[in-house]
């Protein structure tokens, strides 16, 4: 098989794209955010994300989120093999728009909470958690 100039160029571009891809570490997390917000702008503030600064065991990291007036809150762990953690949809009888749970973290990373407000806007908060022992098995 002979390579034309066009083929060679295409191959080169493909290879370049492949080498660049791994540096988009949070690509999956960004995609998840885009899927949740539909591409809308996400403002900082309005969400309280409570997570420990240092988690000794990545298998159970307690986190809690609170966003006044939110209809849904999505939690993401940007450094996990699959960044999605959970999405809380608050119903009409929800008391405070807050929830706590325990999550797994593969390593030191940012945990991100994105809240969808009742008026359709979005807000986010993030918190860096240092993980001593990762929680995704080896």
């Amino acid at each position: 098989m002979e390579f034309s100039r066009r083929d060679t160029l295409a191959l080169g571009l493909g290879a370049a794209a492949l080498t660049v891809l791994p540096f988009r570490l949070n690509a999956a997390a960004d995609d998840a955010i885009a899927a949740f917000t539909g591409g809308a702008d996400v403002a900082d503030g309005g969400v309280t994300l409570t997570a420990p600064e240092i988690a000794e065991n990545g298998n159970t990291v307690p986190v809690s989120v609170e966003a006044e007036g939110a209809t849904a809150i999505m939690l993401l762990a940007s450094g996990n093999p699959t960044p999605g953690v959970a999405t809380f949809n608050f119903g009409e009888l929800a008391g405070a728009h807050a929830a706590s749970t325990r999550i797994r973290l593969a390593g030191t990373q940012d945990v991100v909470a994105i809240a969808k407000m009742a008026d359709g806007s979005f807000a986010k908060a993030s918190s860096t958690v240092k993980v001593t022992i990762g929680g995704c098995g080896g």
Partner: protein
Amino acid sequence: MASGVKPRIKAPKKATAGEAVTLKTLISHKMESGQRKNKDGSVIPRSIINRFTCEFNGKSVVDVTMESAISTNPYFEFEAVVPETGELVFTWYDDDGSVYTASKKVAVA
């Protein structure tokens, strides 16, 4: 059905009308993430609870979509407004199609 699945709930028995009560739920489940490998090096398939809902008298309190990053024995703490005497119904949906339910009655004085 995964073995040994047992829901546990902490909810108050009494409340005043319109009060926001704190609910704590925990269900024993191994929440296999689909990332771990067994001794042969093959991946252990994912087996998690992927959805949890809480309703009071048929009205939604919270509906949680869960991914594999939720820890073993998923624990949730949240608040619900109790407008009248009724029953809280908690439902967990397993990947394998099993549905686990539990309920608690709350009396409004």
